[in-house]
């Protein structure tokens, strides 16, 4: 047991240390890290309130018709599915791709100790979500159940909630790692899971939109009508079903039955843990052996193929190509810096498509057809909205805000290459633009399709948006030149735990908000809006370009 705790502490410390390690002015500051995480947690508060608002109403409605257990089970099942998805993303890093594995395997420690310590660490993070969800449920269930029994039920529910989904995800991962060679590459795995999660998030978003538009009767009919998905989830997450029945029994003032159901739920979770250990012992260590060798080795090249593959090009285009290759081949950078730019337009397009299937008398359609872009005031507002959109989209493109940080220890290569620093910086900015501009183009395509604006207005909108995107692109680069995060072991530290990214996103949102409010009050005609916004965006672009041209080399020289 002592070895388990020692290992658990070390694994946890490494991960928590990485999470809170934020560099300010070259020095690592855990205080700033904790503050930022605190802000993040606080920002989740409105979401928790929203969840509370939705489920409390439903609990009341369902309790009245004697079906509270269905709704409780559904809430827990949704939590379990989320934990399952999160665990699919996080568990491989803890079990397989962390660098500690090769040091731990030779230690004189029982395999079960290693497995259980790693599982416990993964579980800790899922408990954060479980406690949040069950906490909200606890408050929502107060009016329906006696507090004493409810507290007992909810504590045990929170403890058992993540176990089943965690067991499913880790067993799935272990079987994949053991038998499917294709996924044994960290990059490939991250791409597959990242894209799957994104698809899942979108499906979840639209499905939940549909569900919350159902009226109470339709929802009860859906839940009691044994739909395949709901039934499958109830069997899959049996402990949730039992916990829901325990709560239902508590509302019916049947304490013995309630406690029995709750303990049964715990027993199911413990049994699942037992099965997990049996499978893990049989597959984990066999799956981990040779993991390092299964990375992207290509087809063997012949001498003639190598000679034929030699292609010369200009230094600038070669540098841009190198940047894009590294960006698209790094799952962390791709997901966070590229996909995020494309995510917004795709969501916009997907949400726009159903509008065209609505009838003309639909309120949404009526509202859209009421927008008259030939009207001067509306056209001015449209230009302001486009500027705001361009700034927000540009801000979400963090390619350049991490362009120096992503170099990590390779940064010295930038220093010894015989290529001017400015050229290298412009090449990095160009790689960012090649990501942002197509994203922006997609947004515009969706908007033009939806509103069919007059051609002059469309051209004016593009003329304003492009300099805005260039401005933010270069500004991100300046942020990263001023405070690059070069000392990292895991690229996520450079991309996700980078203050520059937050500065960029929130800074762009702030500027966008300012432009939106000021524009709304002062820019009344399209001509005035165009002149001010186009002129302003050109000035900002020129300023950012000047910063890189005039100060870029100096900033580069300061970094070592």
């Amino acid at each position, binding site marked *: 047991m002592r070895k388990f705790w020692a290992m658990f502490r070390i694994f946890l410390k490494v991960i928590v240390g990485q999470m809170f390690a934020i560099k300010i002015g070259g020095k690592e500051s855990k205080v700033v890290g904790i503050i930022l995480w605190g802000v993040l947690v606080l920002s989740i508060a409105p979401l928790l309130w929203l969840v509370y608002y939705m489920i409390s109403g439903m609990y009341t409605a369902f309790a009245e018709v004697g079906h509270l257990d269905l709704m409780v089970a559904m809430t827990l099942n949704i939590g379990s599915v989320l934990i399952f998805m999160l665990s699919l993303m996080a568990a491989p890093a803890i079990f397989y791709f962390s660098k500690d594995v090769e040091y731990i395997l030779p230690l004189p420690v029982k395999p079960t100790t290693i497995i259980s310590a790693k599982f416990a660490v993964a579980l800790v993070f899922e408990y954060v979500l479980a406690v949040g969800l069950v906490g909200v449920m606890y408050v929502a269930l107060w009016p329906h159940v006696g507090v004493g029994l409810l507290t007992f039920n909810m504590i045990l529910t929170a403890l058992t909630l993540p176990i089943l989904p965690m067991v499913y995800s880790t067993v799935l991962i272990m079987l994949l790692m053991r038998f499917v060679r294709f996924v044994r590459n960290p*990059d490939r795995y991250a791409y597959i899971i990242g894209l799957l999660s994104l698809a899942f998030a979108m499906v979840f978003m639209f499905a939940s939109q549909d569900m919350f538009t159902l009226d109470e009767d339709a929802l009860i009919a859906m839940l009691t009508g044994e739909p395949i998905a709901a039934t499958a989830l109830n069997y899959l997450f049996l402990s949730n079903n039992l916990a829901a029945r325990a709560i239902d029994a508590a509302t019916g003032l049947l304490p013995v039955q309630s406690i029995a159901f709750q303990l049964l739920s715990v027993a199911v979770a413990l049994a699942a843990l037992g099965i997990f250990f049996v499978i893990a012992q049989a597959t984990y260590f066999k799956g981990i052996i040779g993991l390092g060798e299964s*990375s*992207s*080795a*290509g*087809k*063997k*090249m*012949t*001498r003639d*193929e*190598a*000679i034929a*593959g*030699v*292609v*010369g*090009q*200009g*230094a600038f285009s*070669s*540098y841009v*190509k*190198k940047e894009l*290759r*590294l960006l698209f*081949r*790094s799952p962390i950078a791709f997901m966070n810096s590229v996909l995020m730019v494309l995510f917004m337009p795709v969501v916009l397009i997907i949400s726009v498509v159903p509008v065209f299937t609505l009838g003309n008398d639909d309120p949404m359609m009526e509202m859209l057809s009421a927008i008259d872009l030939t009207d001067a005031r509306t056209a001015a507002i449209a230009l302001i909205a486009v500027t705001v959109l361009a700034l927000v989209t540009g801000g979400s493109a963090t390619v350049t805000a991490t362009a120096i940080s992503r170099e990590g*220890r*390779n940064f*010295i*290569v930038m*220093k*010894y*290459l*015989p*290529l*001017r620093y400015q050229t290298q910086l412009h090449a990095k900015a160009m790689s960012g633009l090649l990501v942002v501009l197509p994203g922006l183009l997609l947004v515009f395509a969706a908007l033009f399709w939806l509103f069919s604006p007059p051609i002059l207005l469309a051209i004016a909108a593009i003329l304003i948006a492009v300099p805005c995107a260039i401005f933010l692109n270069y500004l991100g680069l300046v942020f990263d030149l001023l405070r690059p995060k070069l000392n990292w072991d895991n690229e996520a530290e450079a991309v996700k735990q980078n203050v520059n990214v937050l500065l960029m996103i929130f800074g762009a949102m702030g500027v966008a908000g300012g432009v939106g409010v000021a524009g709304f009050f002062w820019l009344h005609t399209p001509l005035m809006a165009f002149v001010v916004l186009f002129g302003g965006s050109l000035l900002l672009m020129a300023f950012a370009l000047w910063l890189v041209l005039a100060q870029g080399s100096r900033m580069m*020289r300061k970094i*070592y």
Partner: protein
Amino acid sequence: MLSISNVSKTYGNSQVKAVDTISLAVESKQILGFIGPNGAGKTTTMKMVTGVLEPDAGQITINGYDIMAAPIEAKQSFGYVPDSPDMFLRLKGLEYLNFMGDMYSVDETTRREKIAHMGDIFEMTGALNSRIQSYSHGMRQKIVIMGALLHNPGLWILDEPLTGLDPRSSFQLKEMMRAHAESGNAVLFSTHMLEVAEKLCDKIALINKGRIVFFGELEALKAQYNQLSLEDIFMEVTARA
């Protein structure tokens, strides 16, 4: 080919100089071995020579170009192999070599010849289609060496180039260094392998705690220390300092 004159460097607010007023030169037809214990200032010196770090004082010229005043011309004159070969891991070997060729403006004909030649010598041709990520430490070292030598630089600056190389590649690289020097060029390389330095170098620069404690021909050093081996001299000098 390389001249380092009264160069000093201090990191941040440290009171200790990482490199303290050092001077040395590498002439054509010479291999200079740069040796010293860990943290003595070898890598700092090499980083200043290559323009990665700026010296606080002193001057460094390569082929007559001051690294601070004419950095592009100076950088074009050398090929540098840093101490860690873990770079551009998500590029394929050939993509990396093409990139380096573009950076150093190497024409396609020369590039083809060099890649084919060095690919044979280091037995790397077969792996050029794979990402560097999948290479062993030694293979990464070899691809970095190939990239650094692609533009046929007059001066080679190699920081621990033999670390991780298999005996055959190590032998080949030493032969290449010798041939490079004999054809009128120069090599500056750091190493902890004293027997290699003893056999290969025309001159030795021994650095300890940021200061050059000996710079000259190996024979002169041995004469100074009663014909002791370089290893014994190293032990004595670093223990005394």
